[in-house]
């Protein structure tokens, strides 16, 4: 068990490409931190730097307050679960699990006891004598986990360990890993591109984009108070609807925003939360509305044309056209579309909606988000 600190961590490849321009991050003892981001955002690079498999170009990395930049992977007392599991194909399951302990010259009886204990915990006892090639995907994944936990390392590093499992097994294993981590209390850094995994597993989630930290926060905070447009649209499924609006006025504690042909009037708590909008009077902003804040209860109103209705049982997803341009974050910055855009509303399944009809949906103004259209930063939260 240990703490991990990354201070201005940088990675520049030999060809000059700066993959990580400078990352500051602290992981507390026993914490489960998830690194999430789209592919190519540098999350695996960060994990490999923590493991010692990738050189650190600049900055410091401290495990338990001790600088480990120059230490090799074998000296850092970490365990890693790879995406491909990376089991030793020539060894049995038992030997795979025992490998690291044998290298540390631990007493044979002790190794045997620990392997048996780990196998019991992960339900691997019947397959201990088999080679990895004879195991199913789920069993291989558990062997990889077993190999990591048996050593009781300071840090667990996991690089998309669930991506090779089928959907059902993934959900099941996700919960198992979370439970196991809580039980063992080992500080864990987990990399995934799947935001559902990130939200369900992490104590805190760190969102990366192009090697830069976008936000680190608890899943609830990340979802409820995104610091910028990227996080707002990356976290949540279906993702947040963001359209162009204009702040019409801000006076006497009331803020009015024009979206499409409608005016949203924010008062009291909603206005206080987005008080920063007072500086934007007469200017364009990006207005963010989560699907569940559209079509339920609320004072605001928006007209939409229904394109498609998806009945999911627990909710009714309505894909509709809204007469305002979309705003989204791209690799080059904030991009404002033209004309109308598609929004998704999550309605109560007892409601009815048909493709082709025009609906007036309620907007929950207390859950409205606003972003600067130049920088993409959140305005008030």
């Amino acid at each position: 068990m240990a703490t991990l600190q990354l201070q201005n961590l940088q990675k520049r490849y030999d060809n000059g490409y700066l993959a990580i321009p400078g990352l500051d991050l602290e992981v507390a003892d026993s914490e489960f931190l998830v690194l999430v981001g789209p592919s190519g955002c540098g999350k695996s690079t960060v994990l490999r730097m923590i493991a010692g498999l990738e050189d650190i170009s600049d900055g410091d990395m401290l495990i338990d307050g001790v600088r480990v930049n120059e230490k090799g992977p074998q000296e850092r007392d970490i365990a890693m679960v790879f995406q491909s599991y990376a089991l030793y194909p020539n060894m049995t399951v038992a030997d795979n699990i025992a490998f690291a302990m044998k290298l540390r010259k631990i007493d044979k009886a002790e190794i045997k006891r620990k392997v048996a204990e780990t196998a019991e915990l992960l339900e691997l006892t019947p397959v201990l004598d088999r080679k990895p090639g004879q195991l199913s995907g789920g069993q291989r994944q558990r062997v990889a986990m077993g190999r990591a936990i048996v050593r009781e390392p300071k840090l667990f590093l996991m690089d998309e360990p669930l991506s090779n499992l089928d959907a059902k097994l993934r959900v099941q294993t996700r919960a198992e890993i979370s439970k196991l981590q809580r039980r063992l209390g080992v500080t864990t850094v987990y990399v995934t591109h799947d935001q559902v995994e990130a939200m369900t597993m992490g104590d805190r989630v760190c969102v990366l984009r192009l090697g830069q930290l976008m936000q680190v926060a608890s899943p609830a905070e990340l979802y409820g108070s995104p610091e910028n447009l990227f996080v707002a649209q990356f976290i949540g499924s279906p993702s947040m609807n963001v359209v162009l609006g204009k702040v019409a006025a801000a006076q006497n504690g009331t803020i009015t925003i024009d979206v499409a042909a409608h005016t949203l009037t924010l008062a009291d708590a909603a206005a206080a939360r987005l008080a920063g909008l007072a500086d934007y009077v007469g200017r364009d902003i990006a207005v963010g509305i989560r699907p569940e804040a559209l079509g339920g209860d609320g004072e605001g109103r928006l007209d939409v044309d229904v394109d498609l209705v998806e009945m999911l049982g627990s909710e009714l997803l309505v894909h509709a056209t809204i007469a305002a341009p979309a705003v989204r974050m791209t690799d080059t910055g904030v991009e404002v579309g033209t004309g109308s855009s598609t929004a998704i509303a999550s309605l109560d399944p007892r409601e009815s909606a048909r493709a082709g009809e025009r609906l007036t949906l309620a907007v929950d103004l207390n859950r409205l988000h606003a972003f600067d259209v130049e920088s993409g930063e959140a305005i008030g939260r």
Partner: protein
Amino acid sequence: MNTADTATASPVGQLADPAVSTRPGFSTRVVRSLDGGVGKLAVWLLAALWTIPTLGLFISSIRPQQEIRTNGWWNWITDPSQTTFDNYRRVLDTRQNGRPLSHYFFNTIQIAIPGALIPIIIGAFAAYAFSWMHFKGRDTMFLFVLALLVVPLQMCLIPLLRFFTGPFYPDALQGIPMVWFAHSIFGMPICIFLLRNFIGSLPGEVIEAARVDGAGHLTIFTRLVLPLSVPALASLSIFQFLWVWNDLLVAKVFAGRQTNHPMTSAMLNMVGDRGQDWHLLTAGGFVMMIVPLIVFLSLQRYFVRGLLAGSVKG
């Protein structure tokens, strides 16, 4: 992807569509016919053709000297009454430089086993380093090794001999060890090249997992890379062993005195100065073939796997 997807996406699925012509192309028909009886017949025919010289050699070896010299070996088929093992008896009884043939047979074994193992062992270490260790000038060094592949062996005989007889080479290692070293030197580039291709294609995450588990390079090499490279090592062993076993030139140049020479050299002497005893060569050839045949048959299942390994992932 499930199998249904694959089936509809594949050209086979399209061929089943009646709107599309169902007549397969010429090359497809050729390949299909090879799978059937015609192909099998052709393979049998080729195998038989290739075996005829060996069969001829064997039949010659069991015919009397007079017969061998006056008519072809196929006459034995109609008149097998003259079968004799005289040639074998003479080959095995011959003494050269006061030593029986078995002496030279063991010389060959003494040369061939280290001559095959040394370059493969050193080559495997080098291949690991070239694949998985990061050091300055690694690729340049590997290019130099590759360049050595094209240097003809004959060009190196004299410089190497001068080195072996020079002041830097210990006297204690004169004789057969010189043949080992020569074979090791000549065989090393191809060993390094082939093994690097194989070892370099092992999954990187497995090597990294071992590093994270606390293994150093030597442990990774001995506990993971070597066991995983058995197919490549086995097929390379066959090549190198056969090469050294059949070698005459290198042994003759480096082995020193006659009694150190291998069987190939003894065979040459057996034929006589003017080749007058060449009928003995038939029996001698068969005696020499026994060991390589055993080595090949015992390693052949690795041989095929080794050649394919690395070409296809997984």
